[in-house]
């Protein structure tokens, strides 16, 4: 019986074509020269039965990956009467190399250009007649998707099989044997110098995983680790934060105030009350941000994130997401922007869109900074960590609600297959490097936004010059009047509302702009907030800050990653609406209960 070998690179639709030609009646079989089993099927061509064998997809006929060796050995020991080479027409310039390698073997070849319909859409035109002439072999354009071009192909194959190439087997063997020398050399070195046990002995990773991925203990351990991490960040970070704040205040009162005393009042006001106060308030958070990124870098590099995906996948699947989506959500606790870009690993567009819709609810480090400040101002030191933890729960709840509501709109059947790396304890250097990289990025972004933001806030709260600063006569006061009816039912006063408007650009500005609006920094600002607001108002403000869009960068990333303006608008409107409703229900509910 004559033999046809089906050859091509991975992702060319080779298996689809094989199933189509054989009508799905394939069997698994052993072949001389190779240890893996290959799929083959018998079909009737003309008046003869021929056998067609599906070889593994390879990139390079002379390569040394498992698949490439299998293909070579198969061809050597089972020289086919015809090689049916399938190329992806959309990647023709990359795939041509394999065809030319096969042609060098002087094999009897018929070429199929698959996905020709898709290539047309990309504007790729292929003159298959001309190409056939130049290469000296029959070439056909087919579309596996629409099933076009098969009849001619089968005819050509029948014809080609009638005229076998003389001496082909000998030539082919001698050429393939050159690669075999390299193979045997490789095997000899590996055999004598490298030992890989058939079954790996239980190592540290296995022992750790027995506990960390335990059916019952896995999830509680996971949440415990997360809780400890956040506790640790504040335990170490808060004293540092207080120390930096005091140092910056001292610098102002002992050096900057006297130095700038000679300037006109409006200029020193802009420089000190505007820029310096705004930047100093934010700078005090740098230690916490550094710690946060250091800890995140440690978790990420240790290999634990893939374990989190394993533990959470079952729950995420119920929301129409997968374990990777959960990992992205966690990364979003650092910054939403890289988390959104991380969804690129998902192939299904609807799964990606749903995941991207959920990520902006992750309580990112910029929002964390706002919450740390407000909780310190309005809650007792004992209650503050609990309040912060509750905001994380709200962050998850908003994400879950969004996924559940929109999972019907964005349905997908993307397979979930992930490699699980062994645990690696990141070196201090690695952690420092990564942490530093993230912090640098944060500071660059933050300073740019913060300086521009606080100057703008200062101008809005001090213009026109005739009005008293931050009074209702200023531009900010007028903006406040405009939006007052919308925010009044949420318990959010005009000053906070102005800060929210700026927070739309970046959350890093929120506290800085409050510093400018109230003309105070650090503890003094906290004290002023404590006098103007009760805890219900403060919490309502934090809920709104948590849920309404993270920042302009996130919106820009959503737009550029989704390439869909309507989707981006839907995401913004949904989060704004949800923020308003949640704050409204909380504020009115708490008031109704008598708080």
């Amino acid at each position, binding site marked *: 019986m004559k033999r046809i070998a089906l050859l091509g690179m*991975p992702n060319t639709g080779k298996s689809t074509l094989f199933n189509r030609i054989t009508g799905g009646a394939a069997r*698994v079989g052993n072949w001389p020269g190779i240890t*893996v089993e290959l799929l083959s099927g018998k079909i009737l061509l003309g008046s003869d039965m021929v056998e067609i064998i599906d070889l593994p997809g390879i990139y390079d006929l002379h390569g040394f990956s498992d698949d490439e060796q299998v293909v070579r050995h198969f061809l050597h020991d089972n020289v086919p009467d015809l090689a049916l080479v399938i190329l992806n027409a959309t990647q023709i310039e990359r795939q041509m190399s394999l065809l030319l390698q096969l042609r060098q073997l002087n094999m009897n070849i018929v070429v199929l250009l698959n996905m020709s319909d898709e290539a047309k859409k990309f504007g790729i035109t292929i003159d298959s007649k001309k190409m056939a002439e130049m290469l000296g072999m029959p070439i056909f354009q087919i579309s596996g998707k629409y099933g076009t071009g098969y009849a001619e192909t089968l005819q050509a194959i029948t014809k080609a099989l009638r005229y076998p190439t003389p001496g082909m087997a000998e030539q082919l063997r001698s050429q393939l044997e050159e690669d075999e020398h390299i193979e045997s050399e490789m095997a000899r070195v590996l055999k004598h110098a490298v030992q890989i046990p058939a079954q790996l002995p239980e190592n540290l990773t296995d022992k750790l995983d027995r506990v960390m991925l335990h059916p019952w203990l896995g999830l509680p351990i996971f949440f415990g680790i997360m809780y400890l991490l956040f506790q640790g960040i504040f335990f170490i970070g808060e004293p540092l934060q207080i120390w930096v704040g005091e140092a910056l205040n001292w610098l102002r009162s002992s050096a900057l105030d006297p130095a700038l005393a000679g300037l006109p009042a409006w200029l020193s006001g802009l420089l000190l009350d505007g820029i310096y106060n705004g930047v100093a308030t934010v700078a005090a958070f740098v230690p916490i941000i550094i710690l946060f990124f250091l800890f995140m870098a440690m978790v990420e590099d240790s290999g634990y994130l893939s374990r989190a995906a394993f533990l959470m996948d*079952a729950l995420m699947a119920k929301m129409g997401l997968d374990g990777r989506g959960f990992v992205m959500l966690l990364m979003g606790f650092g910054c939403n922007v890289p988390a959104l870009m991380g969804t690129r690993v998902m192939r299904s567009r609807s799964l990606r869109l749903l995941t991207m819709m959920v990520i902006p609810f992750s309580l990112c480090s910029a929002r964390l900074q706002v919450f740390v400040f407000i909780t310190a101002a309005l809650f007792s030191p004992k209650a503050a960590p609990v309040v912060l933890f509750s905001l994380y729960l709200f962050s998850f709840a908003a994400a879950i609600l969004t996924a559940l509501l929109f999972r019907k709109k964005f349905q997908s059947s993307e397979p979930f297959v992930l490699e699980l790396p062994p645990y690696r304890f990141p070196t201090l250097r690695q952690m420092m490097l990564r942490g530093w990289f993230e912090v640098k990025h944060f500071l660059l972004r933050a300073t740019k936004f913060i300086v521009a933001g606080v100057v703008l806030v200062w101008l809005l709260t001090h213009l026109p010059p005739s009005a008293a600063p931050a009074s209702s006569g200023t531009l900010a006061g007028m903006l406040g009047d405009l939006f007052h009816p919308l925010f009044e039912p949420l318990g959010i006063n005009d000053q906070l509302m102005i800060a929210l408007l700026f927070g739309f650009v970046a959350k890093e500005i929120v506290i800085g702009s409050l510093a400018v609006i109230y003309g105070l920094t650090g503890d003094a600002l906290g004290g002023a907030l404590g006098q103007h607001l009760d805890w219900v108002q403060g919490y309502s403000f934090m809920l709104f800050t948590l849920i309404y869009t993270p920042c302009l960068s996130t919106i820009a990333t959503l737009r550029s990653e989704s390439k869909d303006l309507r989707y981006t608008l839907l995401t913004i409107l949904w989060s704004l609406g949800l923020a308003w409703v949640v704050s409204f229900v909380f504020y009115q509910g708490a008031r109704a209960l008598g708080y």
Partner: protein
Amino acid sequence: MSSLTLAHLHPGDTATIVTIHAEESLHQRLQALGFRSGKQIELIRMASFSGPLQVRIGTTDILLRRSEAEKIMVCRA
């Protein structure tokens, strides 16, 4: 020899992959991770709430959902 799917194995079981009945893209992804007929595969553990499986092929550990594991025919060693 009885053929069953990877999803039918129990933690600790070792088997040999017979065939993979997956669509092209998943097939490629599995091949890239080392799933090939004739290879030995060990089921390490299953996540609770019908979550994913952890399997080992050679020196590589892989996570996959049960729905994907059902597409992989194996033969218990």
